[in-house]
């Protein structure tokens, strides 16, 4: 028991270290997508919820588990979709300092991304 706990702690500490290294390299420009991405990833508690909802442990477990599955799923679906939307916006903006020249092209695409075209 304590052996697995130690292993789990190792994993935790290593993950924290890797996370720190990766995240300090993310420029402030992308902090919002970073947040929504980690949010989507935190939806991984879906796996815990699935176990609670689907292993016949009584009404309480099933009910709580089902709600938890729904909550986690909201984060997974919503989180990935919105992160993708944001990252596309960052990619989509003209990469060079040429923006002064063609002012006519972007507005059509940019004006109404709220109800945006279906993207996957």
């Amino acid at each position, binding site marked *: 028991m304590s052996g697995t706990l130690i292993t789990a702690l190792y994993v935790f500490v290593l993950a924290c270290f890797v996370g720190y290294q990766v995240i300090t390299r993310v420029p402030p*420009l992308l902090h919002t997508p970073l947040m929504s991405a980690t949010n989507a990833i935190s939806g991984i508690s879906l796996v815990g*919820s699935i176990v609670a909802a*689907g292993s016949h442990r009584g009404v309480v477990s099933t009910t709580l588990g089902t709600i938890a599955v729904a909550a986690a799923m909201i984060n997974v679906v919503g989180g990935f979709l919105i992160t993708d939307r944001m990252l596309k916006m960052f990619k989509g903006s003209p*990469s060079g300092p040429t923006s002064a020249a063609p002012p006519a092209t972007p507005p059509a695409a940019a004006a109404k991304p709220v109800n945006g075209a279906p993207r996957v």
Partner: protein
Amino acid sequence: MQQAAVGMLLAVIGTLVQQQIVDYRWIALGIVVGGVVGYPMGMWVPMTAMPQRIAISHMFGAMAATLVGVAEYHHLAGQVSPGTMAALGFEVLFGALTVTGSFMAFGKLQEFIPGRPITFRGQNAANGVLFVTAIGLFLYLIARPANPAVFFTMIGLALLIGVSMVLPIGGADMPVVVSLLNSYAGLASAATGFAIGNNVLIICGALDGGSGFLLSILMSKAMNRSFGNVLFGAFGAAPTVAAKAATGLSVRSITAEDAALQLAYASLVIIVPGYGLAVAQAQHQVRELAEQIEKRGGTVKYAIHPVAGRMPGHMNVLLAEANVPYNELYDMEEINGEFERADVALVVGANDVVNPAARNDPSSAIYGMPILNVDRAKRVFVLKRSMNPGFAGIENELFYDEKTSMLFGDAKTSLAKLVTEVKSV
């Protein structure tokens, strides 16, 4: 992101085929409900509502973790080793306070709860008592896990702590709180991993917790305040400075025509966006104005304060949505030296991040916070709805500066006017 999504899909499928899973009906129901609610939240929420969107999703993440913790405790019915109990306790403590805390943050950002700090006498003492009691119950549970009453009391306290923690925090401090809640939600997930022995959960939770923590440190640093100060400072509660500045000083307002004339002939314009830009949804108009100025040969740069807006990177996302090229966006350190050369600094809905009181006035609540040196520009135009102080409730002496002219009105309308005027100059 696709790789991450695929990885997660694999983890979920892996869990689904485990032998202990015997009933798929409820799982399917949860997945369908979550998908139906999650899809619009991902696809159709406008970029201007991102802070609320992020806050509420922290709530869902933490809710999942908390419910799993409760279900697990219920299932094991007290037959829990101290190690597992510690993990479960962490999970529901962090989870529960994040659920209510995030909901409060959501409410403040969505403005159905007043955005200003809500404080009362002895608040910190009351919070302290709540916190210490919750920790006490937690320690007791580790020693004697088979005690559901104590377990649920602890959850109740954690829910209360979430509310009372966010109540006294003002809108301007929201970036810190949102990132902190992000971190808590992640830590709750990681604790779930410890409790049910799942490494994927531990890793993802640690990443989430770590990144949220790091962001909140960055945000606090950007305001030159400590964590403790943000959480317990009840910033902006005492409007001492407001009284001082309101006496006898007057502001100059300017018409769109005059402002447009100066913008049209400026060689360097620095645009300083703030939360007001998001509220007015004026990001597209800002870009149009910038294009008009650039067409006439001027240079436009955007100065982004790290805590402008209500979450980390808020302004960047908004401007990216409007297709502003991101090589025109500058961080505070990069741009601050350039204000002296700027002919016009155009402040769009920003307030506290350009308040010189942070440099000059030791009695100000924001004293010591690094700011954008807008007051060093040759001319300053401020687009603002009215003379109400910003979210932090502090008067801004920049508005009374003799170089400053105010262009009152909705930022979107004002900017649209400026675009038309600059075109016709």
